[in-house]
């Protein structure tokens, strides 16, 4: 039994029960591998990650600051571009980024909010300091997993949560609904899913249920008079004022972006540009969570808010800058190199895993395409205990925190803690077969 200050903190001693329930509720994670769709069960570990109240206050402040600065950056990039003119961010990093969409130039989203839901990944270093790993400002997923796991464990042992003073995380639905209501341009809220073969379909349906938003697919939607409508069963139509879309930008409107898209809504961009519908998150956000732009976020915080960044970035080098390139080429064996165009834990290479020959090849690639990569020091992050076959073992874990920007910017007092099941792996992405645990924020 795991105890903290002589109190029981393990809500269930046997994760199997919870995992069976999760299976029954269809809590799965879909992955495409070799062209085939496979649904994977996302295993739950019963030992929670615990963050004390004082520590969380610092994290919270740092995340609010970061999300605010990123929203200001996005507004600036698609309007005045002051941060480029003032030489803080080199223009190449912005305009070469695949997430930058010229079609969004001059388009102002309702209430000027670009990233309504920011999924910010952090790790706790061995020194107890938290570091930002990456920002996810497009369609960050994962909030539903700790929500439902908490629901089930609470049912199994309700006392554990009150006795330990764990902040209730059931308010996520309210935070999300408040955000949708705040930007809604008239009409209902809806969650747009590409359908049940999507990796996060469970989450789409669960969040729709919790927030009272309509769960919709594109074949029941259309744009007329530059407004977005849902066809109703009686042959009528209902206006949609806020669309929480779980489809990426390039598939969203076949008349503006990828014309081959079968999951988009034709002329949605016209309705959005006319200010008749809020799109959550807004279009074009990929330019701000680009791995190359990450390097500049602390500078953005200073530039837009006049404050020092509270949460640190992992020490990062951009081969784009000559000085950094020299360092990277010399120290490649101990760095982690990330391809800025890849996501989901792909395109991440640890120099220490490569042979001398491969390192030499990689150096050449970096010299030829410096803009394509960033390099980071490997952070010695704190391992967390997990239960494996009844034994406690230590594994690498990160935390995805959810920041919601509406009338105010708020951090959800919970989050998705993901761990690697492979003892040697630092990559904790769920697409790479990891598991998750609940994240407890203590109220005192």
């Amino acid at each position, binding site marked *: 039994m795991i105890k903290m200050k002589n109190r029981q903190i393990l809500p269930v001693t046997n994760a199997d029960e919870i995992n069976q329930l999760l299976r029954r509720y269809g809590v799965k994670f879909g992955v495409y591998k070799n062209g085939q769709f496979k649904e994977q069960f996302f295993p739950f570990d019963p030992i929670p990650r615990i963050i004390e109240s004082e520590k969380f206050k610092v994290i919270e402040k740092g995340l609010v600051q970061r999300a605010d600065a990123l929203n200001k950056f996005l507004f600036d990039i698609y309007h005045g571009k002051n941060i480029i003119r003032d030489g803080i961010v080199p223009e190449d990093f912005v305009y070469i980024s695949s997430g930058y969409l010229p079609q969004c*130039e001059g388009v102002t989203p309702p209430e000027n909010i670009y990233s309504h839901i920011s999924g910010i990944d952090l790790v706790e270093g061995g020194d107890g300091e938290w570091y930002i790993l990456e920002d996810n400002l497009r369609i960050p997923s994962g909030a539903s997993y700790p929500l439902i796991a908490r629901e089930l464990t609470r049912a199994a042992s309700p006392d554990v949560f009150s006795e330990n003073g764990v902040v209730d995380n059931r308010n996520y639905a309210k935070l999300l609904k408040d955000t949708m209501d705040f930007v809604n341009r008239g009409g209902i809220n809806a969650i747009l899913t590409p359908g049940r073969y999507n990796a996060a379909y469970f989450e789409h349906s669960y969040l729709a249920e919790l927030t009272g938003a309509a769960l919709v697919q594109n074949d029941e939607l259309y744009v*007329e008079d*530059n407004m977005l409508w849902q066809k109703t069963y009686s042959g009528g139509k209902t206006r949609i004022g806020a669309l929480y879309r779980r489809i990426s930008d390039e598939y969203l409107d076949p*008349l503006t972006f990828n014309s081959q898209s079968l999951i988009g809504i*034709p002329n949605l961009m016209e309705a959005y*540009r006319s200010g008749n519908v809020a799109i959550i998150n807004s279009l074009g956000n990929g330019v701000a969570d680009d791995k190359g732009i990450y390097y500049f976020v602390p500078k953005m915080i200073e530039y837009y808010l006049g404050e020092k960044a509270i949460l640190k970035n992992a020490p990062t080098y951009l081969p784009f800058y000559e000085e950094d390139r020299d360092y990277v080429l010399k120290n490649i064996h101990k760095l982690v190199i990330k391809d800025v165009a890849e996501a989901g834990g792909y395109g991440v290479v640890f120099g220490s895993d490569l042979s001398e020959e491969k390192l030499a090849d990689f150096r050449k690639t970096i010299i030829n395409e410096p803009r394509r990569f960033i390099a980071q020091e490997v952070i010695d992050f704190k391992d967390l205990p997990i239960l494996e076959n009844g034994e406690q073992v230590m594994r690498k874990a990160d935390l995805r925190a959810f920041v919601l920007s509406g009338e105010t910017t708020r951090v959800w007092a919970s989050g998705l803690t993901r761990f690697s099941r492979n003892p040697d792996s630092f990559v904790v992405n769920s697409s790479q077969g990891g598991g998750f645990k609940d994240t407890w924020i203590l109220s005192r």
Partner: protein
Amino acid sequence: MKLLNFSFSTKLTFDNYVHNHSFALRCMPIESEVQHIVNCEMSISPFVPTKITIDAFGNTVTAGYISKEHRFLDFEINGCAEIDLSKSKTDYMPCYLYQSEYTKPDKELTDFYADVSAKCNAKDPFERAVFFSDILSDIIQYEKGVTDTKTTADLAFELKKGVCQDFSHIMLSLLRMDRIPCRYIAGLAACDGETHSWIEVWDGEKWLGFDPANNCPVNEDYLVLSQGRDFGDCSIDRGVMFGAYTKQLQLITSSLTTAY
């Protein structure tokens, strides 16, 4: 300064009924410092209410939705524009400096650029464009039917054949490798009975039109319908519809004449 009467129509016919048809048209000439639209009328059949917005590139977008079954979509514009090249067109966007979907060069085009740029002594962006176009017009043959609307610059360059759209894309690719901002234009030209394509080159202060397919600077006999990074941003009509049709036929007619 010149007054031009323009008309443009397309007839889109399907071999079976279609429905839930969304469309976005970019066929209304844009208003700019050098191109003033004196009047312009548009008609669409079957009749359907439309909405007009201006997109990020400055194009006039006419959007509509036809839910009922229909077998054709016709639209027509008629009007008069005042063209005055003594004025300057200055609506700049940074994306025009970077390669886009249609203009990304492959190795052959990159090597060709290296070769051509080494021979070019001109400093002025427009003069460089003229120099590149002179060489291109010798090696690329104007020929219809070998390329289509999906053909990229590198593919057309490999074929050494193409139409105005392909000439424009190859030029844009070369100029962007040369770090000269430039953009794609879809429009009407007195010399062409259908729609024409040319480019605009940013000289540091303003846009200058150049017609690579005819290897000549643009004069006041050209009417801009839409502009963007490449053909993808400028499609005169884009649509999505449902139905059991297997073929669609599009007939385009246009005319551009001097108004007296």
